[in-house]
């Protein structure tokens, strides 16, 4: 039930994000070029959700923003889940001081307030590291890296707990007795059995990444305008609450739908995996 509800929220959003260029072609205008005579336009056949403070189509900007948000969310989930699962499996398998050290690092990171730290990290001037700055692609890469730095922790703890249970089971001993190497035991036997909880953690980390990306973009530290993202659209809308309050509705609703969709999906998966 929750699984289907989550998919019902996410699929239209994802379809809209993928189809954004065709929708743009169908509507016949460009969401990146200002049209100063058409500012704050009401919803119409031409602009289904109206226009923003520079006369750009809000629907198209929300859909192009979806490309950014979903891309960041999915990339962070893939990177954080991969890293977290690897760390968790390794810690559970190795035990001893590496396990203790990794888990102390995880405890320390979970105890810290994430957003203030992300704000500080996001202020790093990537130009000084020899990377291009101010381009949408480099903004996205920078966000994925700093969100992954925090995202792996939750996955690692879950993967470690699940792997500890699995490693104590008879089938692991049986595999070892029949001569399987440690790598084979971990990757062929243990990993598939911890995939369930890790998948749930991955779905949750998409939700967390979308929220964090939009918060940083809202604060002006994430995706920089003119590239649209839900967060920086809301930052513009906040300055206009008195003159154009409705501009704040759509980007926020998109974030709500995306995050609720991922959360419901994770809940639904949790009910289904053993």
């Amino acid at each position, binding site marked *: 039930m929750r699984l289907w509800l989550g998919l019902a929220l996410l699929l239209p959003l994802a379809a809209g994000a993928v189809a954004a260029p065709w929708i743009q072609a169908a509507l016949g205008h460009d969401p990146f070029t200002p049209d100063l005579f058409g500012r704050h336009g009401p919803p119409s056949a031409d602009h289904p959700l109206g226009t923003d403070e520079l006369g750009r189509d809000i629907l198209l900007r929300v859909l192009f923003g979806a490309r950014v948000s979903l891309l960041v969310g999915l990339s962070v989930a893939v990177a954080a889940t991969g890293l977290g699962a690897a760390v968790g499996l390794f810690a559970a398998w190795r035990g001893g001081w590496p396990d203790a050290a990794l888990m*102390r690092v995880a*405890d*320390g990171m*979970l*105890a*810290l*307030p*994430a*957003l*203030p*730290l992300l*704000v*500080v*990290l996001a*202020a*790093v*001037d990537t130009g*000084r*590291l020899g990377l291009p700055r101010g381009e949408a692609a480099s903004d996205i890469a920078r966000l994925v890296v700093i969100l992954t730095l925090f995202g792996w922790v939750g996955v690692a703890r879950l993967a470690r707990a699940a792997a500890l249970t699995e490693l104590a089971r008879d089938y692991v001993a049986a595999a070892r007795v029949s001569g399987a190497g440690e790598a084979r035991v971990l990757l062929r036997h243990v990993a598939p059995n911890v995939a369930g909880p890790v998948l749930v953690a991955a779905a949750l980390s998409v*939700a967390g990444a979308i*929220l964090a990306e*939009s*918060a940083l973009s*809202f*604060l*002006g530290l994430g995706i920089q305008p003119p590239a649209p993202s839900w*967060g920086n659209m*809301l930052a513009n*809308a*906040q300055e206009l*609450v*008195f003159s154009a*309050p409705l501009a*704040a*509705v759509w*980007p*926020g609703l998109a*974030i*709500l739908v995306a*995050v*609720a969709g991922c*959360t*419901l999906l994770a809940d639904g998966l949790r009910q289904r995996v053993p």
Partner: protein
Amino acid sequence: MPRLIAGRLAQMAATLLVVSALVWLVMGLMPGDPADLAMMADPALTAADIERLRAAHGLDRPLHERYLAWLSAVLRGEFGFSRLYAVPAARVLWPALGSTLVLLGASLALAAGLGTVLGVLAAARPRWAPAVDALAVVAQSVPGFWLGILLVILFAVTLGWLPAGGSADTPGLVEALRFLVLPVATLAIVNLAAYARHGMAATRAVLREPYIQTARMKGLSERAVVWRHAFPNAAVPVLTVAALDAGALVSGALIAETIFARPGMGKLIYDAVMGNDYNLALLALLLASAVTMLATLAADLGQRLIDPRLRD
């Protein structure tokens, strides 16, 4: 217990030390050191002036040397200066901390109180469960900054009942409370879901316990069974969630303070980072982290205090 507290405090100190060292390294990669900023402010400065400025600020020394000097000063209680506010950093930090603690305390009380009551209601009256469930999903997913903007549009712009942001300029409790309502509501709503979910799960579990059957068999009203017998035991998870969510609460405070232009630690960190005031940013970040970890520790200890099963 004292061993546990000592261990946790040691781990806190280690975490703060590591964070301060890493952030100090990262600050070397941030735009605008004091000499750059002085040069921008005064075009008449010559290269020789800049050399002298860099030497005066110690900017010509290597990064680790500067870090150790900063660390030993901070450990002696000398927090240095804030570039942005042009006063000693401590003069900005402590008032901001006070303001944030008020915001955090009020939001935590509201989120935990309302969330737990909703959770217990949903468990005791299954008819309510779907509504509470839906509310929890929405509250968990709504971005705090959007909720804040919507509340401003409704209560400040449309209805005109409450101020849109800032802090009270006339003294008086009522005035101060008026400025507190919207930030507290925003922060409480985004943090309420976890309390509702845990409260619901815990109450459902407690209602299956034999002592509840005993209470029902004694002929107690359902109201007395739920609120007098089940509720106190179902309230233990409040502290579990409070311990888990302390970081999320402080993160939310940064958002709430930024939207509502409310002076506090979160806004201070944000303004300091944006204003190239890296000493203040680092100190505020460490202070916010220390508050978060102390809150987590307090909640953990509280849990052990009221639930004998957790003591060993």
